[in-house]
């Protein structure tokens, strides 16, 4: 029984991180239908920003986690720059495939640019303690407060994002753009500005994800976003990409699948099962668990 609970907790811990990252993916994909492969690398940017600013925050007498503010700013800036410099010009010219390849190129660029910066370099860095440890015990297994707060933050972010897209003016504009770009222009929506703001929000979220990730898995390195981003993306697709609650659901499922295969099936095949779940879901329900099947307009 305790093994089961332990596995469940690990699954939730991983899943909540995946969910948080997946929310950013889904946000951007929902608006411009682009798998932003660089999203994982935004997490790396956020991670390094915090590594550099935590001492600053501590020096100012603030708790370590406040450095996330800098990270949010930095990530949003990187996200907006990426959109302005790389994605926008290509969206005008190319197909969705060239856009996807650009996203891969941006991801490569960020990873290697980080390595080329002397202060970062190829070596991993370990963050200092961000939250104090502690937790409560279920059936003899400790559930850490950090895990709980990650889940809570993911849920809050999910609700806020959902309300934001439903209720606010900018959110409505985002939904319009995702439905029909040309029509949005006609309705007086500044499409480019909306997309840039979406990127800012999505990338800012990746900084929050970076904070929660680092609180539990304190290693920061230049390629950290690759597998994390990939799994989070899988989570977003699994839940139904573009659908905000879907990202949360998908993230938790992926985390739980990973944890339970490690414990009960084969620890070295966990990734296989994660992708297998994705493949099975996509084949049964091509738009994801919460997604609606939309045929191409003829």
């Amino acid at each position: 029984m305790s093994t089961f609970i332990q596995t469940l907790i690990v699954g939730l811990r991983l899943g909540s991180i995946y969910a948080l990252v997946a929310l950013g993916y889904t946000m951007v994909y929902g608006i411009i239908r682009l798998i932003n492969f660089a999203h994982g690398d935004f997490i790396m940017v956020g991670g390094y920003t915090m590594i550099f600013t935590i001492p600053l925050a501590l020096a100012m007498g603030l708790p370590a986690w406040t450095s996330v503010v800098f990270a949010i700013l930095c990530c949003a800036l990187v996200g907006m720059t990426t959109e302005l410099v790389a994605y926008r010009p290509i969206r005008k010219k190319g197909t969705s495939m060239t856009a996807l390849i650009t996203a891969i190129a941006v991801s490569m660029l960020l990873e290697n640019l980080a390595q080329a910066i002397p202060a970062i370099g190829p070596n991993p860095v370990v963050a200092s303690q961000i939250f104090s440890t502690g937790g409560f015990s279920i059936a003899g297994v400790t559930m850490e407060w950090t895990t709980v707060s990650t889940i809570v933050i993911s849920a809050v972010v999910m609700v806020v994002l959902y309300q934001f897209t439903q209720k606010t003016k900018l959110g409505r504009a985002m939904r319009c753009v995702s439905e029909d770009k040309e029509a949005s222009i006609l309705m007086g929506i500044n499409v480019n500005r909306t997309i840039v703001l979406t990127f800012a929000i999505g990338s800012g979220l990746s900084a929050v994800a970076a904070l929660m990730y680092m609180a539990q898995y304190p290693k920061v390195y230049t390629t950290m976003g690759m597998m994390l981003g990939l799994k989070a993306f899988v989570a977003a697709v699994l839940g139904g990409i573009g659908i905000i609650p879907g990202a949360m659901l998908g993230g938790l499922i992926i985390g739980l699948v990973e944890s339970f295969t490690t414990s009960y099936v084969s620890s070295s095949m966990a990734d296989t099962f994660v992708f297998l779940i994705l493949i099975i879901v996509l084949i049964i329900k091509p738009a994801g668990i919460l997604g609606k099947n939309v045929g191409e307009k003829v």
Partner: protein
Amino acid sequence: MKKKLACLLLAACMCLSLAACGGSGSAASATPAASDAAETPAAGGEITIGTISPNTGSLAAYGSAVTTAVDLAVEEINAAGGINGSQVKIVNADDQFDPTECLNAFNSLVSQGIGLIIGSVTSGCTSAITDAANEEQVCLLTPSATADSITTVDDYVFRACYADSFQGAIAAAYAKQSGYTEVGVVYCAADTYSKGLYDSFNTACEKYGVTVKAVESTASLDVQDYTNQFASMVKAGVEFVYAPYYYDVIGPYIVTQARAAGYKGIIMGADGYDSTPDYVVDGADLSVFNDVYWTNHYDPADTSDKVQSFVKAYEAKFGATPNAISALAYDAVYMYKQAIEKAASTDATAVRDALADTSAVYTGVTGTFSLDASGTPTKGASIISFTSEGTTVTTKLVDVVKELPQA
């Protein structure tokens, strides 16, 4: 049509310019190479040693460990008058931690007429070039590739470190000696180093009558959660777990998570644990690092002159404590020096014969040793433990094992 022609022209230009670059590159490399090879080590001449290391890619840290230590050793040798009066020159090549690139780097060095090569760092890359070294009759001395199959009798491949089978067996022997009859293993299935150590540990356990009761693995080195694996160890009731991973996994992830999962026993590792104290979470409760043991090639805290002068010189030059790979690379340069002096020649075959002499004794930072028939040093392993009072982690030399105990 115009566009097409323009395209073709552009491509042609690109190819031509590249060919020109390449041509000049290889031509430039060819001329000194040919003359180099023919040269006998007359006083005042130059001895060229090639090094292959992963300067870019995910193990770039090891690359810089090797290049810095080799630079230090060469600087010392040249300042002291060189080898047989000849100055030493280093030509470095990058293998990107990729076997294909490693072979390319090797071929490139050989084509420059270099017959003495130090490299590569990892077992995976080195095994891609061992047979090429034999075929080309080029001396290959790897500082740190520990896989058993790297060196064989009658070949051109040697190393400065001990092999996996020794390192794994030391750990198994230590388990037995400490009174554990049931042990567990957590290893990475996708990593040559980790898998190799697991295999040798497993074999040695059988020999020493220790039962490997639980085995868990991870699919890649990118895995960040090891809680379930150690929870299984707790469930299996083992109190000694062999976890051959690298420092960047041990420090931030494994030890903390293992303790959090309720595992209180011993965690044992290998030379990959080197530098762990630089990779722990500041501000966390570091007392979890007690009861973590590992085998290493040397201990930087060793008080012997040899070690201390190396550590001091390295710290003065690069501002960091040298890790075991640096120490091994440093020793590798001196092994070549001794062999060249003995052979009185830089000819690869002569140096090979000198290195193959099992009676030669090398005194290096990583101990005093001679090579066995296959070309692997017979030297002791330091068993080191981490100790922590809660806020910092320090290393402590537990034992130096000269040879494996009998079963």
